[in-house]
């Protein structure tokens, strides 16, 4: 039984028990939950998600003829799209003030030989022994989103404020912006699909903590820190 489940009746000091368990993922009587994401990471995730949703929804209205015909109000819709797009990198930049967020970024950035092997193996046959805090698919998706946000921002700025650019470059910027928007939409659908199949992962992004067995199963090589159960 974990200390947090029975704090009153357990003579053992909960803090001491927690400290003793914090070395490795294994060990009986360990805390039932481990910390996965700090507040900065979660705040950056949900702010970026909200801004992305606004960008995609307004983009659909600007881009798809039937929706444009239905909604109209082009000036308002394009202003909302513009400001949501310009604000898109802000949560990630602000979160970079947090050391925990920067550690998450460093984890996402680095690929080990095991990551390459993981990518080359078919999903059902994958060995997860060497998977740390993030698996290779999560790392690739994070890099894709980071690159996509920058390219969308750059091409969007050329489209909106690019009077100094030649018309071919503005057309090119529009082409890249449109094509990458579709790729990003496909990527986000995949992201949501993966999340829909994994309640523990969703819990982690919502509350910051995940069940310890989930961490041991999905991310065995991740050095976890025990934590209190989620409060919502």
């Amino acid at each position, binding site marked *: 039984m974990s200390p947090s489940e029975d704090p009153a009746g357990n003579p053992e000091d909960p803090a001491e028990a927690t400290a003793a368990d914090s070395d490795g993922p294994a060990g009986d009587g360990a805390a039932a939950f481990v910390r996965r994401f700090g507040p900065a990471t979660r705040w950056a995730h949900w702010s970026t998600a909200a801004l992305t949703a606004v960008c995609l929804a307004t983009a659909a209205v*600007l*881009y*798809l*003829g*039937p929706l*444009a*015909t*239905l*909604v*109209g*109000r*082009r*000036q308002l819709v394009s202003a909302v799209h513009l400001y949501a797009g310009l604000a898109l990198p802000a949560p990630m930049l602000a979160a970079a003030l947090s050391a925990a967020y920067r*550690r998450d970024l*460093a*984890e*996402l*950035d*680095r*690929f*080990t*030989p095991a*990551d390459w092997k993981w990518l080359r193996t078919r999903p059902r046959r994958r060995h997860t022994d060497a998977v740390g805090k993030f698996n290779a698919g999560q*790392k*690739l998706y*994070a*890099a*894709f989103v*980071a*690159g*996509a946000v*920058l*390219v969308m921002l*750059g*091409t969007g700025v*050329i*489209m909106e404020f*690019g*009077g100094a650019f*030649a*018309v*071919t*470059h*503005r*057309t*090119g*910027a*529009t*082409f*890249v912006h*449109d*094509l*990458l928007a*579709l790729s990003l939409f496909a990527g986000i659908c995949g992201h949501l699909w993966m999340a829909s199949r994994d309640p523990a992962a969703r819990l982690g992004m919502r509350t910051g903590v995940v069940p310890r067995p989930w961490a041991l199963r999905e991310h065995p090589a991740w050095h976890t820190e025990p934590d209190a159960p989620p409060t919502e």
Partner: protein
Amino acid sequence: MAEGTPVGRRVVFVMLGLGALGVAVGADVQRGTDRFVAPLRENDPTGLTDLLPSGGFRYYSVVASVPERTSADYELRVHGLVDRPLTLTLDDLSRMPQTELVRDFQCVTGWRVTSVRWTGVRLADLLDAAGTRPGATALTFRSFDGAYTESLTIDQARRPDVLVALTMLDGPITHDHGGPVRLYVAPMYGYKSIKWLAEIEVVDTVTPGFWEQRGYDVDGWIGKSNGRDDEPV
């Protein structure tokens, strides 16, 4: 601490490089893809091919919805400083001498549709039919969308490349393109070519139109206004 190679940031750099390359050559690639997307689109009842990035017109409207007008209920009023105020049906306009232009359509936001075939009545002919009075220096156009307005000086309006257009793209102008009747001001940015044209008032001073009250240039010459240097049409 994290170990391994920094693949994540390399992916980001590669994407930035591809993005820059796309900006450089995207216009040419798009011309290429348009060539095989366009026929697909014409035979696509699902509209799914509209998702592909491609050239062509984009739909812009400043209001939530625009009423539909057909040949049965469409009317164009020409009034103000004129000798003979006119109320013209689509049939009246069709019976007037038609002029054909094959010119590009350039939007101030950057997209351009090349070699669009337009036919319609020269605005100059319409003004002659109504007879402008002394003191008439400008026109105010109003759309039956209830919000959009535009302006031209009389001299601009009398240019031979300014049409009250009845067809575009080899057919009657569709509702989404501003049909049944819209203006086509070839040498100016698209916002001057008011859609869903309902009213032409001859006036003594230029009243800036919808977008012009929101910062766009009143004299919207392509390549010489709005801080842009597009190739003139």
